């Protein structure tokens, strides 16, 4: 099962002041953990699912929360070297996509697509794109490494 992403406007009672700060639910499915749900409200993130002791609903910044999750055995911060069998998107494209998604996340539901991992196997002769490299297999457990 490939990791799947869902970004949704908040739909639970945890959303208490959506009019002032806005609230977004960020759901990630990985091969190891079925669902990791993070609520983003204003400048803080709260882990909703799985209910890890000490982190559940604790308001933290994104970096603090992800580092705390890594300490608990859930590494959700992959590197380029963790990509196995598929191509990593260019940094310019990633930055653009994340900025655009963040701008509309309060009013739109977004979900990852199976097409995103499709590899361009037909290269044009004058294409500036490079053939993607298959990186070494990741040995750290509980990461976003996908088959």
């Amino acid at each position, binding site marked *: 099962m490939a990791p799947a992403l869902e970004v949704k*406007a908040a739909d639970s009672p945890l959303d208490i002041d959506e009019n002032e700060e806005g609230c977004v639910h960020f759901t990630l499915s990985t091969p190891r953990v079925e669902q990791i749900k993070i609520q983003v409200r204003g400048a803080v993130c709260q882990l909703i699912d799985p209910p890890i002791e000490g982190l559940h609903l604790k308001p933290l910044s994104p970096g603090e929360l992800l580092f705390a999750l890594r300490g608990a055995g859930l590494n959700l911060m992959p590197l380029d070297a963790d990509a196995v069998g598929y191509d990593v998107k260019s940094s310019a494209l990633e930055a653009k996509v994340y900025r655009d998604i963040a701008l*509309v996340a309060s009013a739109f539901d977004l*979900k990852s697509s199976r097409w995103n*991992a499709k590899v361009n196997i037909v290269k044009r002769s004058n294409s*500036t794109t490079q053939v993607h490299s298959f990186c070494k297999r990741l040995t750290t457990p509980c990461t976003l490494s996908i088959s």
Partner: protein
Amino acid sequence: MHPFYQLNEDRSAFQVRETSVYTGGNAETLDYFMALVEADTESLSHRLAPGTGQLSGPGMKCALIQQSEEYTPPPPPEESPPAADEEKVEEVAPEAAAEAAKTDGEEDAGDAAQPEVDEAKDEADKQDASEEVDAKASGKSSEVKAPVVPQEPFNEECISGNVSHVYLSNSLRAASSVEAMERVDRTPLKLVKTVEQLLGLVRPISFS
């Protein structure tokens, strides 16, 4: 449409729809659109008309496209009509010969046709046996053959009434309600930066 030009490191696709959390408890009432964010140099318009209206720098653009998330059903397997006809002829031949013999009243006709069919079957059996021996000798087996998976075409044409834009919000404007776009415009900057930071750390576009 370029049927086999699919996504690469400069193109990204994801699903998007207007949320219904404010109107109906976020029930699955609305269908997802497929959004495509790509470098201008990888876009369909650039491939069809290179050098015309190109964005400067690392130009990126967004569009809602016609491609759906569902799998395209594979084409039905092609049958070989000639081979099927030959088998039918072989099956029908004895019966036809027997009927012809009955109608003509010649009892010897059926006996004459039967040996010819038997000889043909024996030759076919011998040929199959020799092919199996050859396959075993060469180490090949019909079960080992990998199935040929047809590649799905990727339809990157915009949905009707939509064109590509620099910002995703502008692409969504034509396919969403006025209220949704007002919410987008009123989104607090703190929330935008936090979601962007979270996405930048988790990198779901590259790793999903």
